[in-house]
């Protein structure tokens, strides 16, 4: 974890998404997919907290060596400010942060599921998995074609791909969940990776747990600091020995978790959909295959 004043090399648009590429060799050299960056907000604003973004690309070699790319969809105050940032401006960047996706050693067929900007870390992961000789298939979703991040890149990175849009403006109409069981079967996936909104992750997790398919998912929780200081970003995670749970910090112990160990009902207590807490015998797939 380093903190740097990083120059913006480049800003681009991809559909609804803005992409920013920064020069941060100290950070780039150690980055792995699933890790994220923390960006400081400017002074004099009414919004104080740093904003957090998954790393989409890290170039360690070649002309772009030492650069990092992240993407976002300008929604609130912080991302709207970021959308105005221009090349050659400097950003206050901390990274790399968090635990990355783990690569399987023995298992070989990987199904990667992403929704919206979740594609950012997932495409990075796809590259790394392929570099390790794994088979990668993908489901990529978004509310509409504009919100499907770089579909062509997705196609390039995967053996087979299923693109889902809420309005059917690209690929099939529906969400990534609709495509999930079919793709699981079609690809005979041995491992599932996902980055999507919480309710989607949970539904994916249910399927994975039922079918006993090991999976890793990158979660989001509001982060007061992103570096482990404030304990606001916690996720309730069942202990490996099953003796209870701990509220683990998504910023340091996550954002990638084994979804079988997340106490989803407890964590999602603040979501509109409220269900009874799980029975004691909640299935825990302990050891990660790899």
């Amino acid at each position, binding site marked *: 974890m380093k*903190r740097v004043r990083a120059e913006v090399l480049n800003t681009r648009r991809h559909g609804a998404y803005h992409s920013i590429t920064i020069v941060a060799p100290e950070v780039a050299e150690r980055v792995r997919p699933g890790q994220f960056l923390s960006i400081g907000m400017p002074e004099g604003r009414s919004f*104080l*907290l740093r904003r957090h973004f998954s790393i989409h690309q890290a170039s360690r070699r070649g002309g772009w060596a030492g650069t990092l790319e992240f993407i976002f969809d300008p929604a609130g105050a912080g991302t709207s400010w970021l959308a105005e940032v221009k090349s050659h401006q400097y950003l206050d960047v901390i990274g790399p942060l968090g635990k990355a996706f783990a690569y399987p050693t023995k298992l070989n067929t990987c199904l990667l599921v992403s929704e919206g900007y979740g594609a950012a870390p997932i495409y990075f992961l796809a590259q790394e998995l392929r570099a390790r000789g794994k088979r990668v298939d993908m489901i990529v979703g978004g509310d509409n074609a504009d919100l499907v991040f770089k579909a062509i890149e997705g196609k390039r990175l995967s053996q087979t791909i299923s693109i889902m849009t809420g309005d059917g403006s690209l690929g099939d109409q529906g969400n990534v969940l609709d495509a999930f069981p079919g793709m699981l079967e079609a690809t005979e996936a041995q491992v599932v990776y996902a980055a999507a909104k919480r309710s989607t992750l949970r539904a994916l997790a249910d399927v994975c747990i039922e079918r006993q398919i090991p999976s890793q998912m990158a979660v989001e929780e509001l982060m007061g*600091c992103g570096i*482990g200081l*404030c*304990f606001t970003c916690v*996720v309730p995670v069942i202990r490996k020995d099953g003796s209870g749970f701990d509220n683990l910090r998504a910023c340091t112990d996550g954002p990638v978790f084994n979804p079988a160990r997340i106490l989803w009902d407890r964590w999602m*207590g*603040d979501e509109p959909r409220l269900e009874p807490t799980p029975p004691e015998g909640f299935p825990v797939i302990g050891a990660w295959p790899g």
Partner: protein
Amino acid sequence: MRPSVAVDLGGGLTLAHPVVAASGCLGSGRDVPALVDLHRLAAVVTRSLTRAPSKGAPTTRAAETASGFLSWVGLQNPGVEEFVEVDLPRLTRFGTPVIASIAGSTLDEYVRMASWLHVQPGISGLEIYLGTPDHERRGDPFFSHLERIREVVGTVSRLSRVPVFVKLPALLPDLVATARACVRDGAHGLTLIDAVPGLAVDAGRLRSKLAGPVGGLSGPAIKPIALAAVYRVSSALPDVPIMGVGGIATGEDGVEFLLAGATAVQVGTAMLVNPSAPVEIARGILTYLKDKGIGSPAELRGRLRVRGDEEAPGRADDDGMPGGTAAGRTGSVPWGSTP
């Protein structure tokens, strides 16, 4: 840091400079990231410790508000024993004085924690947190009953061989009286202020942004509130060490608190946003002292000039018009009595 920024909090607690990490904003103690330059902090206050481990509040635990941060962590902490075993040794490695914050739910818990902590090597002070529900008073927070504050403060202060600070919230109308009682009962000093109760609403989803109906508001938004609390208490108790806390993010903010009457300052939210904030604040205070040719932070203490000191605001209004001074006489100061 030049020796001249050192501050003496009394009770044997001398700090290299006046900037301390506030309670709850430094992770668990066992894994403070290197970005926070631990050995360059004047001291650290631990997250508030409970007797047994606590998992804290459900999520979502935080929300952003205008120039503020609203959070409800619910005192997640490993409990006092695991803290002493695991966190304390790693914290003390840096040579930085450690002040342990204790949060009991009964008088007995405060006593047990204090007894256990005050003798630990590396513990330089205790800070009593009074916001926990008092299980012997229907769950009211300790600070809502003066006699409970006094019991806790008195008992802990009597047993402790390290200086005891009492952390008070700003929302006591009898803040000065409470502070005075704490000191009379043996507290060495005061920490002012705790985060201010606040609510953030998600209008779109018709719900509280946090998992509970209330959190603690911190950050620049509350700085004026904290400054007023420090000023009021230090004016009444000029000899009592006070650690000022609330919205401090720059050296200038730090100077403002010293002028208002703080002996040292604590930094919470600013550190979350800028992990080197405490060091930058200390450096800013030093620069200010140099620029003004002032010898030490202690010389700033309570030097705040107020027009009202020189010319009573009441008299400014008194031009013989009947009743014209009703509001002016004591200036319609919106706070309680300062007995």
